[in-house]
């Protein structure tokens, strides 16, 4: 007996142990992604990192690519293992699901030591290069590095969650650098993808496309609340100083050499936009967007005056604004929206005054504007220009000296020409015209591919190569003017812009018909000169007009466009696009959308929010503000709930009852009065049996009724038969009532 006892105990102990072991192993391996899901997750990682790839350094990209490729390899190997497993057990019908579970991502798990060493090395590399690339970039490196490595250790569900959240954070971080509509849409698409991977985890059986659909629906529903939040939630000022993005500067630079701008014009990136509202847009040849005035020349390149001296003159900048408004020239008011350039200069049609919110914008004496901070986000400001008004009428001695200086002997042949001209033409303007005439008459050409100059020699260009871009001509002109003793300077900026009138909101009044905006791209970059004429101030002279008048009057010639598309060698070059009408229309449409996006979403500032409230609700008080926020949130939330409720109701709408169902339910109700309830789980036949036992007098009639009901419900009958049976059932029902009454 004792023996038995022991044995049974042992058995029971084993059994308990077995159960425990089972649950333990279950807890360990209960996370496994299906094969499809694992690949999707991998794809998601690749795409998410690719949106931020431009901000990462090459070595980090290499590491990330390596680890992702490694993961792909492991995944692939995992599949082979899974296949061999499934070959071994293809017998039972259940295997399908088991297989899909077995082909899990366990394969991507790498030993923690290797991973740890790898991670440590990566971190060390990031720390070492931190100084070089800046704090923000090194944080990004760290983020992306961990995002790529996390894929190696998907051991539990929380790892999976972490990976997805990291992915979302990478997406959010990528928005620091670019916010335009196209990029935002890409980010949104990737958000959908990431969430769909998460959803796939919970609804494994659905196809990925349906999951994407579900996520899109979910996000659209959330959009209601998100938009309300965006509109009403107070904009807070930054909580702490953050490292600013140190992205590559785009656009013009502080110094310019002949040939510089020609390189810039290969880019079809947007520089800024201008909106003239309902006013007429000035002629193309008047749209000289001034960015920088370059007054120093060292024989090779033109550069801006030193900051130190510039600041001194800044005080004078304020004065002329008032002078100009008094001259009675018709003002032109417009809004400028600058794309992030990671530089400080702004654009204006000189001379102009900042109107409205002038925070952070410094006007300079040379009629340019500077932002106090590097422009890392779209920035908008309003200007009023007096296009025909003269620029500064006074010239300080210091300034005159600066604008006459040039390194003696740097370009001897040009100096000689200048002396000759000085002798022939006493009047400054006539002298300038003479230079332009030379450029016009001689065999000069305007090209995007100017031949290289030795030491940036202007002599070589003017007398030998005779082919150049705007900077060449402006440099030569300014040099000759200076050498001939009249102050001259170089100005860089943009010329013209593409008018996009598709923003027409379709207002029937026709008032807004003129509404549109001007988009100025990098290829509109330009350089021209200004000469000082006593009594008239600084006069703008564009030497380009004498070599390629089309450029100045209406924009790029087809020849230039062709040249550009050849140089860029891309399929969707501007030239090709402009030749295909529908594509061009699409491009303009998208540009208009992007403009609205930049204006209303990116540029939605605290002030605009305040104005919006003021428009809608009148004067703002803080309690009113709080009330508005609360009420709008509640309303949008209840809208969402109502919407979802209706959506779900319509799906679960009960089917209309058939005649026989009504009849049967009537008899049920009659029986219930007699104290006989049919539980919903009981079948019709079972209930009939019970009725037979409890009320024998009802037995026959009710059994017949039940039988008819069953036949009507479950047998496939022709409509004719159905009607007949329905009639019999009605008769049976009458019988049943009669018997029941007795």
């Amino acid at each position: 007996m004792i023996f038995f006892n022991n044995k049974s105990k042992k058995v029971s102990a084993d059994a308990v142990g077995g159960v425990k072991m089972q649950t333990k192993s279950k807890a360990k391996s209960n996370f496994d992604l299906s094969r499809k899901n694992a690949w999707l997750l991998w794809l998601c990682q690749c795409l998410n990192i690719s949106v931020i790839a431009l901000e990462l350094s090459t070595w980090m990209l290499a590491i990330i690519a390596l680890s992702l490729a490694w993961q792909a390899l492991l995944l692939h190997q995992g599949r082979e293992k899974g296949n061999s497993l499934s070959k071994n057990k293809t017998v039972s019908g259940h295997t399908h699901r088991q297989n899909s579970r077995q082909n899990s991502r366990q394969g991507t798990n790498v030993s923690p030591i290797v991973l740890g060493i790898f991670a440590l090395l990566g971190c060390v590399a990031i720390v070492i290069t931190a100084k070089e690339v800046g704090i923000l970039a090194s944080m990004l490196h760290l983020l992306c590095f961990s995002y790529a490595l996390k894929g190696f250790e998907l051991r539990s569900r929380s790892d999976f969650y972490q990976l997805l959240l990291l992915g979302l954070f990478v997406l959010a971080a990528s928005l620091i650098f670019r916010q335009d509509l196209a990029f935002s849409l890409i980010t949104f698409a990737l958000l959908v993808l990431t969430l769909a991977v998460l959803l796939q985890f919970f609804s494994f059986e659905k196809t990925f496309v349906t999951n994407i659909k579900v996520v899109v629906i979910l996000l659209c529903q959330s959009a209601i609340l998100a938009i309300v939040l965006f509109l009403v939630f107070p904009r807070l000022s930054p909580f702490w100083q953050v490292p600013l993005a140190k992205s590559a500067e785009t656009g013009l630079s502080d110094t310019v050499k002949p040939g510089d701008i020609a390189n810039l014009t290969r880019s079809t990136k947007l520089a800024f936009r201008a909106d003239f509202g309902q006013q007429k847009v000035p002629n193309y040849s008047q749209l000289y967007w001034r960015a920088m005035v370059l007054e120093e020349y060292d024989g090779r390149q033109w550069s801006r005056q030193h900051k130190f001296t510039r600041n001194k003159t800044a005080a004078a900048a304020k004065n002329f604004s008032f002078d100009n408004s008094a001259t009675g020239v018709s003002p032109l008011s417009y809004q400028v929206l600058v794309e992030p350039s990671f530089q400080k200069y702004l654009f204006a049609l000189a001379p102009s005054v900042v109107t409205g919110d002038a925070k952070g914008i410094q006007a300079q004496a040379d009629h340019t504007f500077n932002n106090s901070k590097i422009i890392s986000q779209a920035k908008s400001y309003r200007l009023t220009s007096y296009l025909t008004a003269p620029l500064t009428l006074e010239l300080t001695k210091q300034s005159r000296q600066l604008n006459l200086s040039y390194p003696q002997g740097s370009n001897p042949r040009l100096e000689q020409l200048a002396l000759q001209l000085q002798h022939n033409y006493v009047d400054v303007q006539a002298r300038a015209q003479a230079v332009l005439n030379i450029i016009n008459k001689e065999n000069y050409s305007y090209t995007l591919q100017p031949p290289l100059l030795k030491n940036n020699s202007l002599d070589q260009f003017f007398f030998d190569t005779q082919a150049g871009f705007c900077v060449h001509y402006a440099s030569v002109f300014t040099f000759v003017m200076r050498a001939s003793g009249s102050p001259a300077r170089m100005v860089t900026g943009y010329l013209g812009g593409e008018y996009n009138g598709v923003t027409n909101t379709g207002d029937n009044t026709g008032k807004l018909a003129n509404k549109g905006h001007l988009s100025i791209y990098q290829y509109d970059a330009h350089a021209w000169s200004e000469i000082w004429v006593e009594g008239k101030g600084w006069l703008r002279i564009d030497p380009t007009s004498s070599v390629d008048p089309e450029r100045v009057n209406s924009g790029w010639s087809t020849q230039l466009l062709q040249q550009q598309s050849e140089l860029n060698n891309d399929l969707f070059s501007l030239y090709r696009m402009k030749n295909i009408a529908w594509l061009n229309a699409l491009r303009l449409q998208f540009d208009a959308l992007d403009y609205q996006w930049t204006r209303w979403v990116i540029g939605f500032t605290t002030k605009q929010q305040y104005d919006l409230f003021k428009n809608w609700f009148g004067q703002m008080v803080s309690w009113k503000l709080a009330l508005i926020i609360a009420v709008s949130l509640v309303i949008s939330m209840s809208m969402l709930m109502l919407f979802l409720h209706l959506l779900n109701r319509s799906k679960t709408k009960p089917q209309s009852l058939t005649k026989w169902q009504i009849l049967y339910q009537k008899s049920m109700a009659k029986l219930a009065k007699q104290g006989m309830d049919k539980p919903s789980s009981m079948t019709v036949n079972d209930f009939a049996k019970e009725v037979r036992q409890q009320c024998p007098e009802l037995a026959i009639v009710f059994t017949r009724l039940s039988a008819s009901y069953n036949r009507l419900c479950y047998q496939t009958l022709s409509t004719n038969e159905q009607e007949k049976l329905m009639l019999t059932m009605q008769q049976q029902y009458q019988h049943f009532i009669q018997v029941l009454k007795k």
Partner: protein
Amino acid sequence: MAATAKFSLARPVRRFFQKHFERWLARRIPSQQEHQLNSRNIMIYPTRFGLAYLGFVVLVFLLGTNYQNNIILLFSYLLASLFISVMLHSFYNFSQLRFYSVAKQQGYAEEVLYFAIKITTEKTHYDINAHFTDKALNSQVEKIELCQQGSHELRLVYKTLQRGKHWLGRVTVFSEYSLGLFKSKSILDFGHYAIIYPKAKSLIADQYQLSAQADEPSIDSYQSTNSVGTDDFSELKSFVRGESKARTAWKQLAKGQGHYSKHYQAEQSQLHWLKLSEMPSNDVEIQLAYLSFLIGELTASNQSFGLQLSTELSCQSMNIAPNSGFHHQQACLTALALYS
């Protein structure tokens, strides 16, 4: 020290809350065979991932605010409102499910019992999980990934070593659809209980003999069994495990015609009793295990028998009159299970 103090303080508090929660739950979701999920019995709360997600949204909001970046802010608002719409989706995915389950299941100890829960739906639901609420049961989570319109079945597994009547308590049904941010949960009470029979323990034939119920309580039951052999031989039946070797038809066995046992006329008409007191062990549990085995064997060979658990004949509830068949077997086994 501090930790232990905290622990000792926390326990009564937790017990207090648990007690109140259970009382509240009993009022809110009373015991029923059938439940339909609606706003009354669904509890919905963020999972740990949901909370982490919220923290993440705040982080994105900080990022947007610090960079004064409207798109990042919009991103964070979108994620925040997604949190709310997922909550509603999660609720609608879970509501209107119907659950039906039979309260009672029976089986032997160490055997796996399945509590079937029938789920009826009117639309498609996803990711429906169920397990016994009681953590001590160590119940595995059963899952239906796709619950299309119609009815489905989940089978909860229960396995125990102890005989008796076990109340299994409530069943937790939950779903983390759609993004795992929220757990929609309901703690349903089907009144589940399991009748666990003692595990059958095979008995060597020599150790027992079927005994007839003595007409007079004064006569020793062993005496009466001895008289069985004196009756007229009636037939040969194939040997059933557990039968006395004394009745083996040795002649037939020796000829190689198979293992038969002799049956006698008197035995057919005579009623046999299984008695707890006669089982060869000191341990009641083992005695019950033998009885469980014998009941199984006798039913398999379609013999009629009675069960006597109490030595006092007057105690009617502990004795089951001789009978045969499946229902009789169950009644006997239930009596064994509930014996105390």
